[in-house]
């Protein structure tokens, strides 16, 4: 057993910490406070981070990327999130789909999409599954209702597919240059057997971005509406096989998406812990430093305790995924756990700061708002229910 980081891991961690502290954090509050959801994004910070390697961290070396392992990815996400959770997510959203390209795409597709992705600091990736009437139905399609799940329709027309319909809440919606989109190619089968995943470049004819969603937290991060009106996509953009969209994604065994959320939450917690300790050591209530009050001591204990337990769990799980050990569900459990921890820690931070007259520390407020995003991320409750099938009868060590 060895919990120490190797040089490469430590190197990326330090680089990310420096970038987060010196460049992300200073713009974090200002971006959060822009009222127009379309205007919160900042290309400069993304391009700058890309220059440092954070956009392409997960791409295999063969294609010019850094091929960082999951432990490194988790460390970097947490560090970036300490600067701003939604900026971190914008980067890691790119890793998520570069995992998929590496695992599931043809060489031709890699040439056409992975190369430009590597070459362009402003090339970010998105993915569209959710629709207005298909949220948890996509994740856990009901057995008695084959029509449940996404309805975006794709019909073959020679060498092309014609897509009609729309997607909602799509990650990097208004900024991505390439989207991975699930569509129904057999309307009579359920989504496991009747849908296909397409790569949709932003300039696809008949495809456009609609609304950009205005959220309580993660305001920098863009969630958009994708609208398809007879959008024409070449057959060559099908990921995996026709009617094999769900399987295509399953070829990527990393379950990166769950670790991603847990590692990001860890960064928020680290930030909250630092803020609370700093505040408690520098502010008095009733003539004593806050840190000298038992109530505050107990809250600080709780914050550190939860954060360190989350860190232990995140890093262990990332290591397990690097090792490709049998998957007993820790990747989902750690995500579920991060939801509980990030709520408690950000709220404890608010408890310690307290209101100041009719004002609240804006970053304390921001962290609570960002944390609320976790209540539904990745369909938290659905994942909790689904994971039961993968849980072992007794726990392994």
């Amino acid at each position, binding site marked *: 057993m060895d919990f120490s980081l190797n040089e490469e891991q430590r190197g990326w961690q330090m680089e990310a910490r420096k970038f987060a502290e010196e460049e992300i954090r200073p713009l974090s509050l200002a971006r959060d406070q822009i009222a127009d959801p379309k205007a919160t994004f900042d290309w400069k910070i993304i391009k700058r981070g890309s220059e440092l390697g954070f956009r392409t961290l997960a791409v295999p070396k063969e294609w010019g990327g850094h091929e960082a392992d999951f432990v490194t990815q988790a460390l970097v996400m947490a560090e970036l999130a300490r600067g701003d959770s939604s900026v971190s997510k914008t980067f890691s959203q790119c890793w998520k789909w570069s995992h998929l390209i590496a695992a599931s795409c043809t060489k031709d597709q890699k040439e056409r999409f992975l190369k430009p992705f590597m070459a362009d600091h402003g090339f970010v990736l998105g993915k569209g599954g959710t629709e207005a009437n298909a949220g948890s139905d996509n994740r856990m399609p009901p057995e008695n209702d084959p029509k449940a799940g996404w309805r975006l329709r794709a019909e073959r027309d020679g060498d092309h597919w014609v897509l009609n319909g729309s997607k909602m809440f799509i990650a990097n919606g208004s900024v991505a240059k390439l989207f991975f989109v699930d569509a129904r190619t057999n309307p009579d089968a359920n989504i496991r057997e009747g849908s296909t995943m397409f790569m949709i470049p932003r300039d696809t004819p008949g495809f456009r971005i609609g609304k950009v969603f205005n959220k309580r937290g993660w305001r920098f991060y863009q969630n958009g509406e994708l609208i398809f009106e007879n959008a024409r996509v070449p057959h060559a953009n099908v990921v995996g096989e026709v009617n094999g969209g769900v399987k295509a994604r399953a070829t990527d065994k990393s379950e990166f998406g769950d670790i991603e959320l847990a590692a990001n939450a860890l960064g928020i917690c680290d930030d909250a812990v630092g803020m609370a300790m700093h505040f408690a050591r520098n502010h008095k209530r*009733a003539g004593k430093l806050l840190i000298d009050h038992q109530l505050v001591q107990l809250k600080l204990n709780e914050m550190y305790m939860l954060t360190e337990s989350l860190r232990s769990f995140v890093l262990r799980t990332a290591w397990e995924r690097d090792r490709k050990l049998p998957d007993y569900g820790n990747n989902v459990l750690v995500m579920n756990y991060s939801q509980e921890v990030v709520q408690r820690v950000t709220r404890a931070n608010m408890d310690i700061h307290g209101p100041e007259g009719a004002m609240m520390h804006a970053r304390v407020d921001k962290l609570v708002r960002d944390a609320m995003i976790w209540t539904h991320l990745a369909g938290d409750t659905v994942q909790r229910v689904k994971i039961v099938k993968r849980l072992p009868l007794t726990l392994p060590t």
Partner: protein
Amino acid sequence: MHDFRLTAEQLEFRDAIRDFVEREVKPAAIDPKRLEPFEKPLMTGFLDQLSQMGLRGLALPEDAGGAGADLLTRCVLLEEIAAGDVDLAMVLGETALLASAAHGAMTEAQRARWVPKFEAEDRFHLALLARDGTAGRAWSYHQAVPEDAETIGEPEVVATRDGKGWTINGLAPFVSNAPVAGLFIVQAKIDGEPGTVTVLLGRDARGLEVDEALPSFGDGGERARWHHGAVASVVLNDCKVGADDVIAADAAHRMFSGMAAQRMLQTAAVNVGVARAAYEAAVDYAKMRWQGGRHIIEHQSIGMKLADVAIQLEAARALTLKAAWITDHPDAVGERHVSDLPWHVVARSFTAQALHRATLESAECFGAMGVMRDMPLQKYVHDTLVLQHSVDCDLAAPLAVAEAVAGYSR
């Protein structure tokens, strides 16, 4: 004899407000165009209409043109308003509270001067500038409060003798109702002497300046507005007050005693109203939204959340109304009908905690829709969070209960 009925008048009043709120206030309050922007200007039209329905003068004696409502009635009605819009409820609650307290403390001459003005104008509200004697105290659980206690945002107002009257100077950074107040009740420290003096200052008093309502962010973005109702800073610059606008010391003392407890219970009732709105929205959505082959309310995970919300909501309401009734009938404690506790703290602390949890659970039923700014759920969550972390209810607030139980005096 226990009884949980409302009187016919209470029922009628409640239903009239509920109807007005459902029909008028709520649709406007949760219009995406209002929800999305950070700034949410006070809906003064509804404020005036609710005033016309008698909410401003709710607690004034009937002979002063009011409804003579006790605290319990005020709590019942404030819940209704808050279910539509929290800011309207806070503004009206504060005015109703101050109107009754001030009326009790005024001389006949003062009443004759101020009551007609109050009655003449729908948008004549009341505001208080007073240092909260208990601010920061809860933290010092086992030692006396030293003078250097940090009291953020407390007004610093000083009165200097000036013939038979006073000259008042000072700054109060956060004054509830200041943007809509016609009359300010100002408690000032007497310059060079121990003690305070309490005076009445009209909105048009020379030297009194009310700033713009507090913006969403201050201090260069380092601070976020964290307050319900309408709040602004007030500057007093050589304001002259004649002897006829001074509240007698004993009357002022009576006026202040008990005021904080009543305000806390009104706030608890407002909290119930906000959480109820979230709960009702969640139930409607869960009965309509179809996923997993059935309406989501028929999934145990959602059903359990909504059951928990309903239970927390009823517990909070039961405790708030009981505490309000006890505040209206303090003899019930001595006669041992109910426990001897600081009921306002009990109800306010419980309500704040339970209802933030309940509101967040309601929002969770909406999935991603719960965090969208064009939907009301994220606002309800925010509103209950503000109610949980506020000057009268913070991490240390429940310690006041332990103190009462311990018979320990700070």
